[in-house]
């Protein structure tokens, strides 16, 4: 499995294409009505804006020469002019309200989609990249994209409409001159074409580097205690500076190219303007010098049309920059959405009916990485209600075996069956709801201790939560805390000891009332006395439930019905404690060596 770390850019496989862009329109489509309304308002406000120069021209050319008697009309027109302006302003306000609402809704939708997909992704996804990189995609990238999808798109299309209208106006005025105005376009197109790949590369690089910065930052926040304990603060700060500088480098490179767009367009616009004058005087004299009089009105009209023609092009140029940014973010977002779900419900999957807890492994092979089997042809049959201990050296595959029972991974070969149902034929929800898994890594959510226990069964009453805590002997220490069960837990359970965290997780698992219970080093950090009390406390609860217990302490193992000794991905020995002791094999060796050690005092 390819893993990613903070200083490795996550390269994209698929190049930029319109397909991606079209795909993003899915989010736009939902707000079709709002977008159309925005268009209508935008067109209305541009039309109103076209009126005001005419009023101005009318007042200056027609009314002022009329003298005093026109003052009344001027005042009326002035008020009209003001009202039109205010009208435009409030139409734009309406438009902004709609666009804010739409872009915010789109952000929310897109973020939800990413989040929903993240919930489906398996352990492998989370295990193979820094969490900061995932977080950036959900939060920052999504924030960046939505504004473009609403305002950027509307403005771009408006600019295009303007472009067409002005083009028609120019044609009616002078087709020849229109050609002069258009002559600047190919140059602009060449600039855009030349810089496009550069733009894309720099922006992508910048986005990658940004994601590296966040990943490193987030990881260092989570691991700050290790950094301090190893006095690595300075070195890490240096690494962080390096990442920041790389990010800056590409951001600036992208900026050098992007900021060029406007000046280039503005310069071209001015060249065209000069060309119009030159053309009018030297090339198209017949059209622009009539009876020895230069048609200044016609020339200035052409110039103003040319300016208006180039304005939307500049807008499009600017939007193009935004588009490039939005695209590089969109690609990252789609990358998450396209991440294949390694474990998902089969199309024909049915709900697993309430189970007894009969677990079978049929010749199971499992590989995390192709060609390297971790579990090698393991078969076993565990009757409902049996308790199984898994022992053996670290890394032998104990955790992997129990993870396969909850189908956190799919088997590579063979099948895992519960009550005769192949796990791949049932829905994940119905399966996992009947399993209680306590993993090696305990995780405490921010909230209260009560919330954390209740996580096992959301509709459990306080009394039921407390009963679960009592069963695992967590009740004493919880009551000893300042706010008891309502004590606030911080992110990751900061402030609780490792053993306390395990006990809370244990209570949570018990509360979920599973048919099959999997305890993966559930009490490794708990002291032996408490552990024994826990075992007594839960023994009645465990009756009739199938349980798999991964542990190293003999006291935990001995009481199980059967013991699987796992070594090198296979079950090397199995049987009850007494059977295995009689066999004098690996387990016997393990057990007696410990007793012997206990006695070997020197």
């Amino acid at each position, binding site marked *: 499995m390819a893993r990613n770390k903070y200083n490795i850019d996550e390269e994209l496989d698929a190049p930029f294409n319109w397909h991606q862009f079209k795909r993003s329109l899915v989010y736009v489509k939902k707000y079709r009505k709002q977008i159309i309304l925005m268009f209508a308002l935008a067109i209305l406000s541009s039309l109103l804006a076209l009126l005001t120069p005419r009023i101005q021209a009318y007042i200056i050319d027609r009314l002022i020469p009329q003298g005093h008697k026109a003052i009344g009309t001027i005042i009326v027109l002035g*008020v009209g002019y003001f009202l039109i302006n205010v009208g435009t302003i409030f139409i734009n306000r309406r438009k902004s309200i709609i666009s804010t609402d739409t872009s915010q809704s789109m*952000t929310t939708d897109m973020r*939800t989609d990413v989040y929903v997909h993240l919930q489906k992704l398996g352990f492998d996804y989370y295990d193979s990249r820094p969490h900061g990189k995932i977080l950036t995609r959900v939060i920052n990238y999504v924030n960046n994209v939505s504004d473009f999808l609403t305002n950027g798109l509307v403005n771009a299309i408006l600019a295009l409409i303007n472009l067409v209208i002005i083009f028609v106006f120019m044609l009616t005025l002078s087709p020849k001159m229109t050609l002069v105005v258009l002559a600047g376009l190919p140059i602009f197109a060449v600039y855009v074409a030349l810089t496009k790949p550069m733009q894309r590369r720099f922006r992508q690089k910048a986005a990658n580097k940004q994601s590296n910065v966040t990943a490193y930052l987030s990881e260092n926040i989570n691991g700050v205690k290790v950094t301090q304990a*190893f*006095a690595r603060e300075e070195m890490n700060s240096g690494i962080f500076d390096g990442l920041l500088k790389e990010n800056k480098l590409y951001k600036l490179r992208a900026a050098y190219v992007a900021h060029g767009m406007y*000046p280039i367009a503005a310069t071209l616009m001015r060249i065209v303007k000069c060309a119009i004058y030159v053309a009018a005087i030297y090339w198209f004299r017949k059209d622009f010098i009539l009876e020895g009089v230069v048609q200044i009105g016609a020339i200035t009209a052409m110039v103003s049309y040319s300016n208006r023609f180039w304005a939307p092009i500049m807008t499009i140029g600017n939007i193009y920059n935004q588009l490039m940014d939005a695209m590089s973010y969109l690609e990252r977002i789609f990358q998450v959405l396209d991440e294949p779900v390694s474990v998902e419900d089969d199309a024909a999957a049915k709900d697993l009916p309430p189970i007894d807890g009969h677990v079978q492994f049929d010749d199971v092979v499992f590989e995390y990485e192709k060609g390297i089997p971790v579990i090698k042809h393991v078969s076993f049959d565990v009757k409902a209600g049996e308790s199984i201990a898994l022992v053996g050296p670290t890394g032998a595959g104990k955790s992997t075996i129990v993870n396969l029972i909850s189908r956190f991974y799919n088997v590579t070969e063979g099948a895992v069956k519960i009550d005769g149902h192949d796990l791949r034929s049932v829905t994940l929800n119905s399966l996992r709801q009947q399993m209680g*898994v306590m993993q090696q890594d305990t*995780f405490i959510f921010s909230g209260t201790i009560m919330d954390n226990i209740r996580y096992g069964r959301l509709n459990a009453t306080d009394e039921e939560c407390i009963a679960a805590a009592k069963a695992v002997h967590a009740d004493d220490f919880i009551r000893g805390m300042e706010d008891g069960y309502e004590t606030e837990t911080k*992110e990751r359970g900061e402030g609780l000891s490792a053993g306390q965290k395990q006990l809370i997780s244990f209570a949570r698992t018990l509360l979920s009332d599973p048919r099959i219970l999997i305890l993966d080093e559930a009490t490794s950090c708990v002291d032996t006395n408490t552990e024994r009390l826990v075992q007594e406390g839960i023994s009645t609860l465990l009756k009739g439930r199938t349980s798999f217990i991964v542990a190293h302490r003999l006291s935990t193992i001995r009481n199980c019905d059967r013991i699987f000794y796992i070594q090198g991905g296979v079950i090397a020995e199995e049987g009850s404690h007494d059977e295995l002791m009689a066999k004098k094999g690996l387990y016997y060796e393990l057990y007696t*060596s410990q007793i012997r050690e206990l006695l070997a005092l020197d």
Partner: protein
Amino acid sequence: MKQYKWAFNWLGKQKYLLILAIIFDIAGVGLMTWEPYIFKDIVDDVLMPQQFERLLPMLGLSLLVGLAFSVCRYLTSVLAEMAAETAVVRLKGALFRKLMALGTDYYRENKAGDIINKCSGDVEVISRSLSFVIPRAVEFVLMLVVAIVVFMRINWKYTLILLLVSPFTAIAANKLGKKIHPAFKKARKQLSNLNAVVAENIAGNRVVKAFVREDFEMKKFQTENQAYKARNIEAVMIWLRYGPIIDSLASIITVINLAVGSILVIIGVDHGGITMGQLTLFLTFAWTLNEPLMMMGMLVNDVQRFRASTEKVQELYYMDESIKEPEKDESPASVEGRLDLEHVTLTYGSTKVLDDVNMHIEPGQVIGIMGPTGCGKSTLVNVIDRFADVTEGSVKLDGVDVRRWSLKKLRRSIGLTMQDVFLFSDTVESNIAYGVPDTDMDNILASAVIADADEFVSGMPEKYDTIVGERGTGLSGGQKQRISLARALAKHAPVLILDDTTSAVDMETEEYIQQQLKAMPDKCTTIIIAQRVSSVKHADYIYILDKGRIIEEGSHRELMKKGGYYYKTCVMQHGLDEAEADGTLRGVMGSALEGGAV
């Protein structure tokens, strides 16, 4: 203003970049105002009198001016961006250093997502303020001043009429600022809530899946996601309440220009009015008055956003570090590893986590510490490595109070493995070399061998170059612990503290590790904290802690004889109940103990 000064300081020597940007910006404004005059001259002096020979030079001049304007514009944007990015690098770097210095107490109170936000989103807002808002503000103020001067020179009374609007604009802008600041703060806070929920979901993905709580998590997320949307819309709505008022006020200027101006022309210069030419000038330059007034609202908006973010960043930047460096480093030149805990007491709130703990550990001694869950074992490590300072008493390393050691030197002298193993998403090699980045491969290999990590690492496809996931996910608990042990060993520190380092490791491996540790050439003071008797029984001396106090101490042999907590634990751990123990083991052991050997 104070905050701007603060932000400005992060530019350091690159201040000149921003100043240059502003100069080019101003020059651009100047060139932009010059251009219309050139074309006015072309019409009046070239086209009307048909003196076409002057056309090309004049057009050439206009092109030059236009080009110069474009260059100015380009330089403004690029220089401002360069300046802002420099400040970003400095500021983020400084915040990172602060984060590295802050203690566990800070991280207990602040969520990771929130901290990340301060260091990224908020810094970006400050950067935008530097690269965009400041130049724009300067530009507009200048524009306003120039416009007022130009207008005043033509007709001061008329100008005063035009300016009647500005106080109202100022009032509206001020109101906007006051209202929008809290709205931005709320939106900002909601973003960190959203961040926190997502970050927690990502980190806890295993538990979420195991309990099939995707729907529940979805609800939690949606609450924050929707609230974030709502807060954002609220902030924009405040802007949309005042923005149009400001714009409408600005548009009054145009109307006055047109209507009052026209009437003044009709009245005529003789009766205190203005000429037609003056009106045209007014109309041409109207935008220089208009635009700054219209942009005022926008600027207020940005300034408030800047303030909200700066407050957040400053909060972190000026955060007090709970564990401080001593004024003078009094640590000895070479460290032997003698540890003395004298009457160590640590209180959190009203609970005594450590209560009058006394320990004297000679250099090279191996000490075991056991005790029930939550008895204060890990806290003991914290006061030695100064992740917490004692409330009473003192911890001395080589006779010097650890609070008088330079933090770096102290922590370099202690090799520590933590209960909650954290590995970085980096290669195994880099993880082991974490404390000694310049070390050679031999040391890494040797440390891995002692920690019994070499075998499984060598079995991985890319061996020591394999990248492990954040927090070491993807490795088994025992594997993580062994890499973490190798990481502590690679430091070759005089003091080694192993906090629950082998709890997830099987007994045989543990025994192997213990033998390797024993055989290590450089003897170091070792403190082993554990739940398993097998982990501590080889120790020279064992302490049993309960509720922050030492309740038993002695060697394995002494403690077994004593029949207290240690003895009971020992018996239980070997799967014997007490009756069984009394009957068999005690008997066996009793004779063994008396015999002195087995």
